[in-house]
């Protein structure tokens, strides 16, 4: 007990779920709350295996509603708390995360997307984009990082805690069953050794001093009596969300200058897109890619800039148009044609993307 879980850094070969557990440990998370669901189970499994050595806690709740609310409770007590879920569990998770949004509670949730709707498959999809970005009965004032590798999973799980606690918006690490279950190499590290300072946590409730005298009263609300009162709070939150969005936004782009075709993909599908695009670019095609890393807030200006130079766009995702809707919304007013490769609930290979891209570049496909 006591010593750091990771000294310096080391290269390891592990599953994505294991990488998340290590990242939470490295980030100094205090407690995980969770309810089992494939394909995120091993996050809980590894956390409970690794955690006790470092005095970390775990609570298995009766369902995901409870896992979400207890995570909020942990945060209110000043603990760096998190949970993880998938599919139907993510549906239930929206109720507590909506509350976190209302009260500006810095929760961290890791999502390992599986096939939907309902139980569907335990394997993989990108069908939880809309749910994770806009699932609550509110405005989607949350941060959503879409990872595409184990390195991303490790890096962004650590970052999620800092983003959440710095900006006080619920923060999600959106991954999928492939990333959860596959094994690949990843460099795990002590954040401090990389100059990453963890944003300190503090209790929301039970602070020292007399409320109203020594300090303002902690007044956390998710209920309002009059419409205008709600609007006042929401306007302030929305204004703040939009103000900090440029600091949070992240994306990756390649070869976007005057591209004949710009491929847009996120998450694990981005890996296939990048392979296909680089292969075709090497063959002399004017093709590039754009990958939003934050799906909320979305890199709107950066995508618009790349898109308006392109002759046509190709949106690729393992869903039937969830990223597409976000892209269309953010590109409103531009008249660049948007083509699609939509494969709900199944993986997409580089070969499939290359084939589609070639057909579009040759003008063979409308």
């Amino acid at each position, binding site marked *: 007990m006591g010593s750091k879980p990771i000294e310096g850094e080391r290269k390891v*070969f592990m599953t994505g779920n294991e990488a998340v557990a290590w990242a939470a440990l490295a980030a100094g998370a205090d407690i995980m709350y969770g309810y089992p669901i494939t*394909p995120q189970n091993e996050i809980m499994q590894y956390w409970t295996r690794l955690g006790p050595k470092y005095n970390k806690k775990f609570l298995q709740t009766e369902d995901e509603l409870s896992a979400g609310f207890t995570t909020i409770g942990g945060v209110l007590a000043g603990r760096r708390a998190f949970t993880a879920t998938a599919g139907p569990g993510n549906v239930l998770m929206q109720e507590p995360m909506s509350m976190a949004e209302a009260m500006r509670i810095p929760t961290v949730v890791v999502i390992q997307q599986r096939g939907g709707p309902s139980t569907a498959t335990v394997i993989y999809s990108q069908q939880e984009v809309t749910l994770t970005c806009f699932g609550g009965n509110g405005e989607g004032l949350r941060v959503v990082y879409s990872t595409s590798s184990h390195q991303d999973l490790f890096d962004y799980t650590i970052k999620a805690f800092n983003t959440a606690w710095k900006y006080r918006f619920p923060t999600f690490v959106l991954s999928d069953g492939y990333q959860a279950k596959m094994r690949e190499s990843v460099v795990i590290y002590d954040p401090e050794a990389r100059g990453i300072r963890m944003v300190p946590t503090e209790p929301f409730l039970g602070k020292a001093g007399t409320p109203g005298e020594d300090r303002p009263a902690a007044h956390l609300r998710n209920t309002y009596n009059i419409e205008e009162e709600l609007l006042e709070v929401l306007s302030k939150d929305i204004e703040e969300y939009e103000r900090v969005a440029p600091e949070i936004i992240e994306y990756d782009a390649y070869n976007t200058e005057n591209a004949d075709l710009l491929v847009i993909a996120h998450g694990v599908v981005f890996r296939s897109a990048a*392979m296909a695009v680089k292969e075709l670019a090497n063959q002399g095609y004017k093709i590039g890619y754009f990958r939003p890393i934050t799906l909320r807030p979305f890199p709107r200006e950066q995508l618009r800039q790349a898109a308006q130079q392109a002759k046509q766009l190709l949106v690729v995702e393992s869903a039937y148009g969830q990223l597409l809707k976000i892209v269309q919304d953010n590109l409103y007013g531009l008249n660049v044609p948007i083509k699609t490769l939509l494969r709900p609930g199944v993986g997409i290979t580089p070969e499939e993307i290359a084939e589609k891209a070639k057909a579009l570049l040759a003008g063979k496909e409308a």
Partner: protein
Amino acid sequence: MGKAVKIALAGEGGQGVQSVAQILTEAAALEGKEILYIPNFGVEQRGGVSIAFVQIGDEKIGAPKFKTGDIVIALSDRAVRRVKMHVGPETIFVYDASIEGVEEDLPANARKILAIPALETANKELHPRVFNVLIMGAVIGATRVVTVEKAKEAIEKKLGYKFEKDPELRELNFKAVEKGIELVERMGVA
């Protein structure tokens, strides 16, 4: 696309294809290679066809799944039918010679089709329990994706705790790897 060696390994649940994939990728990790290994999994706890998709190379691996493998191995009749779709003109397709009734289902477009007597060899010359390690030897024989030394080191790492109780098991496993390589070499692939 890319230069990684792509391996698809399929068998009945319980035949140990995921264990083979774990040992093989562990060996590759010991050699400092880049690896991506993804098991295919469904809702069933037991039974069904289990597939391991493994890619091993010198650079970071791109996508987790691939359409066409460099080597595709099927260890049961259902597995033959299931992984046929991952065979292309460059693929070496390996299946166990004891599988019956799949003549019609063998891929027509493979570079090479090898029926290896793995099950028979394991049963008669070694022990049924090292059948999967023998298969790993066959993969190594066909691809040279890891060295025999690292394969043995990885076996030691994964099964060492069993060897402590039963040292003969170590020799049996090591022999199985070598035998697997030999079976494929005899067919003139390596």
